[in-house]
């Protein structure tokens, strides 16, 4: 197994874990964490691709590395925004659920009575 395959498999695993977490965890904070796991998987894959695509004599392809930094900043801002919203939601309502599934039905969807 080459290093690239190893990292690729790890990335796939992280992406799978993240997607699973986003789908099944009802709590928003866990969803935010799952989003970060998923993101890390994507970034790891990008890093592996950068290493594989290195020109002769270079440690890695520089373009993915530049993009990676940007991607991490974007994911960081997204996390910050999500956590801030969640904190505010908790402050205002006293709960931190997303569910329009059962109890909070009326407040989420005022059209139904």
């Amino acid at each position: 197994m080459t290093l690239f395959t190893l990292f690729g498999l790890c990335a796939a695993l992280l992406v799978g874990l993240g997607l699973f977490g986003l789908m099944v965890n009802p709590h928003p904070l866990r969803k935010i964490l799952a989003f970060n796991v998923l993101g890390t998987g994507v970034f790891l894959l990008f890093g592996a691709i950068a290493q594989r695509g290195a020109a002769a004599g270079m440690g890695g392809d520089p373009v993915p590395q530049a993009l990676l930094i940007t991607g991490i900043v974007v994911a960081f801002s997204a996390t910050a925004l999500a956590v801030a919203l969640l904190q505010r939601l908790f402050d205002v309502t006293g709960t931190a659920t997303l569910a329009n599934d059962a109890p909070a039905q009326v407040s989420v969807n005022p059209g139904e009575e």
Partner: protein
Amino acid sequence: MSPVAVQSVTTPGGLLLVLSVLLPFAGVLIGLVLGASSARRIALVTLVVGLGIAIGIAAAWLQSGATVVYLLGGWAPPLGIALRADDLSVVMLMAVAVVIVGIGIYARADFPASPGAPEARAPFTFWLLLLAVWGSLNLVFVSGDLFTLYVALELLTFAAVPLVCLDGRGETLRAALRYLLFALCGSLLYLLGAVLIYGAYGTLDIAQLAAAVQPGPVTWTVLALMTGGLLAKTALFPLHIWLPPAHAGAPAAASAILSALVIKGSWFLVVRLWFDVMPGVVTLPAAQLLGGLGATAIVVGSIVALRQVRLKLLVAYSTMAQIGYLFLMFPLAFDAGSNTLAHGSALHGGLLQAVSHATAKASMFMAAGLIYAALGHDRIADMAGVARALPITVLAFGLSGIALMGVLPSGAYLAKKLLLEAADGSGQWWWTIVLQGGAAFTAAYVVLVLVSVLRRRPAPVPVVKQVSRLSEYAALALAVSSLLLALAALGPLPSTLLSNPLVPGELLTTVLVILGGALLAQGLAQRPLLGSGQSATSSAGGPLRRAVLSVGVAFEQMDDFVRRWSVASLSLLTLALLFGGLLKFGATT
């Protein structure tokens, strides 16, 4: 693998592309520094200058007749980043500039500059986010590579999410968080696609990729992942989990931005991907699936819209239906001869549809907001007499409804005509039914609201707040511009498309659409269209009415089910898988 004839030099007017992105963000920063007292003034000045820049780009594009290009820092792709404005970009840039200016004028009264007051935070945030949405959208339209597009999309989401919860109520915060999390899920799928395609082709530049991509496992996966992710951000059925609460809960001006403009960003990206990056990878079954989702969105969205008792939710669900319309062009644009998606009348039709929807839907949300502000509620059933109290607003609502229906003369009419032509040309008769039926569904909820507001009422309707005349005229102006779009679009398009509206054939279609709509409204609405006071549940009605009503309820329940988080995220993955499968196995050899 040398990129073919990709313009890799900056063309005249290229700098304007940079300015179109830079100016709104500069406005945001200056506003942030100067504070709440001057945010509105800065925003309005930026709107005017930005409109000028958009016109400048259009002029540069018309003059040269070719794509306007700017290479950032003089570096050519794949190492550098190119900004490009082709025909699609120019049309969307102009449309967004006009709608944003309209929304800015409308919101002047809603979000005044009141320094010092604690409630000044909402106006302050609104004006800065309005500019941020604009800058991000412009970046979506002009960026020439997939990663810049990713950043632009994320910026757009970050600007749009706080707009949902400007008033800070618990339910809007929840809607905003749902929107953000689901959108993030979609954008990571998109990013994963971008990473994979870079791994295979070593570039993210759209023009270079278009020349290089070949159908294969990588491109199938990439297109499926990216499409799935973008559909989640566009809120195409069944991924509309976040749309109704977010669009209905936001203040009217913010809803207009979200509904008319923000969803167009990710939609535009789907168009870019399918038409410009991978036209050769697309297969007919995959395009049919996309069109089919659109058709389902029209049916479900319209029926659930008819069931709503509040005007803003009705308009929000109508947005969901209109999003469906935007995806009908994909199967129609498929060229069976070359097995690719072709730039042709179907694409023109789709683009025209997007522009007329942007103007008309903004106007409709503005009108709904004005009615809400004036009455203090937006229960459709209690709107008798509104037409007398707010004639201009009701006129704007009616005109934007007509524009959405696609009745002559409007941009949507021309769009429908182009799409029908493409349907005939490619022998896909079933899309003809969807297009005409969709118009009837649109007519249904427009008629439902109009009948309600036009109803007489013995005493004048109690108005709790005088609405700004300027806002009313802004809504009206956007509705009229949506109607007049047909004339503007006729410049580049053949004039044979526009026929006399009073020819028997045309008149018959129009009458049939409106009659069909009235019948649908009569059958499906919670209160029968022509019934006087009693509610539908108490009056038994005939067996037919009961049967139709139960269909409506069933659709409502289905919508509730589909909008659960677990169901929606499963649908997202299933759709990505389905697209992948259809891209792999759908190719006709």
